């Protein structure tokens, strides 16, 4: 008896499993695994590993700025932090949309999580990191004083919110989807707008409650625009 004959005889003895039962089992397991992986915390955990280091580092830099306050005057460093905000927001959107930037969107759309979930998870992570950095920076700049902390927070969040809203609107257009890096142009635009407002209305000091209301409205608009952008991902797939 040759080795080949022995192998064939042994394999034939065991036969093959029932294909219908096997297929049904594989399908049911795949479905269970999909449900397990499709939860929001699981998606966020998966995407956290794929966000590039610079996205985290830019948030850390904002927190580090107030720490150099002792060596430099308060006002310029705070102004630097506020001026950087549009670019920080723009970077966040670019990082979240990076599948588009690298022409990998179609590939991401075919994955288990879907492009919609991946974009949602990445934006939530980057947004949370940047928001925490802004809060920490505001607290450090104001040295814990409630009044000045609110002013500092509003001054930092306002340009961030405006940039994010405009970037979301832009990313939903055909041009925006084809040119993800155009978010930098939006950031530069907001930065210039901020400079113009600061120079033309230097003498005007708005009431904190008015600014707080404006910030709240902008945050609501930002959430709506974010939701629309997430849904656009799904629409483009469908």
């Amino acid at each position, binding site marked *: 008896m040759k080795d080949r004959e022995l192998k064939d005889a*042994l394999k034939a003895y065991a036969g093959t499993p029932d294909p219908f039962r096997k297929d049904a089992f594989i399908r049911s397991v795949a479905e269970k695994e999909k449900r397990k992986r499709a939860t929001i915390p699981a998606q966020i955990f998966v995407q956290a590993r794929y966000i590039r280091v610079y996205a985290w580092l830019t948030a850390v830099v904002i927190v580090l700025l107030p720490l150099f306050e002792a060596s430099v005057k308060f006002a310029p460093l705070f102004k630097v932090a506020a001026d950087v905000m549009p670019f920080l927001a723009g970077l966040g959107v670019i990082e979240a949309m990076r599948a588009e930037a690298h022409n990998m969107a179609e590939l991401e759309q075919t994955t288990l999580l879907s492009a919609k979930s991946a974009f949602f998870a990445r934006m939530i992570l980057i947004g949370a990191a940047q928001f925490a950095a802004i809060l920490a920076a505001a607290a450090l700049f104001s040295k814990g004083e409630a009044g000045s902390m609110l002013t500092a927070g509003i001054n930092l969040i306002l340009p961030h919110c405006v940039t994010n809203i405009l970037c979301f609107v832009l990313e939903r257009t055909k041009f925006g989807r084809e040119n993800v890096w155009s978010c930098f142009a939006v950031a530069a635009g907001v930065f210039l707008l901020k400079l113009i407002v600061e120079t033309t209305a230097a003498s005007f000091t708005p009431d904190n409650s008015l600014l707080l209301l404006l910030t709240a409205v902008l945050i609501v608009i930002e959430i709506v625009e974010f939701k629309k952008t997430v849904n656009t991902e799904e629409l483009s797939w469908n």
Partner: protein
Amino acid sequence: MDIEQYYDKIYRYIFYKVNNRALAEDLTQETFLKFLKSECEEPERFLYTIARNLCIDEYRRIKPMTVEDEEALNVSYEFEDDLVTRQAIHEALERLEPEDREMVVLRFVNDEPIAEIARICKMSRFAVYRRLKEAKAKLKELLERGNG
């Protein structure tokens, strides 16, 4: 993990231990469910370990079935020759040491590499190679002389 890739291998491995198609399929599926719960990174070795443990549990629970038992469960074979060959293989395998039988199944049925078998059976590669050679010779001899 791609279940499809391992399903048939685990099924055959279990079938050679329990000698019952329906039971082998049940235990195969249980093996994968246990493996998925464990979230282990090394599928091949752990699938075999889980399958082996499940078979041991099954042995303790019920007496393993023979080819005749399976026939009683209305498993039909087209040709009488096929049944005779199956009976001969079953009896020849029964005469091997359990460890040798396991290595034969892993090597000749599932085409596992020697290094992998050594890891599954916790033996040196040389020992696996030597025992496989002896088991193969014995199996051939038994089959050629009709299990005399």
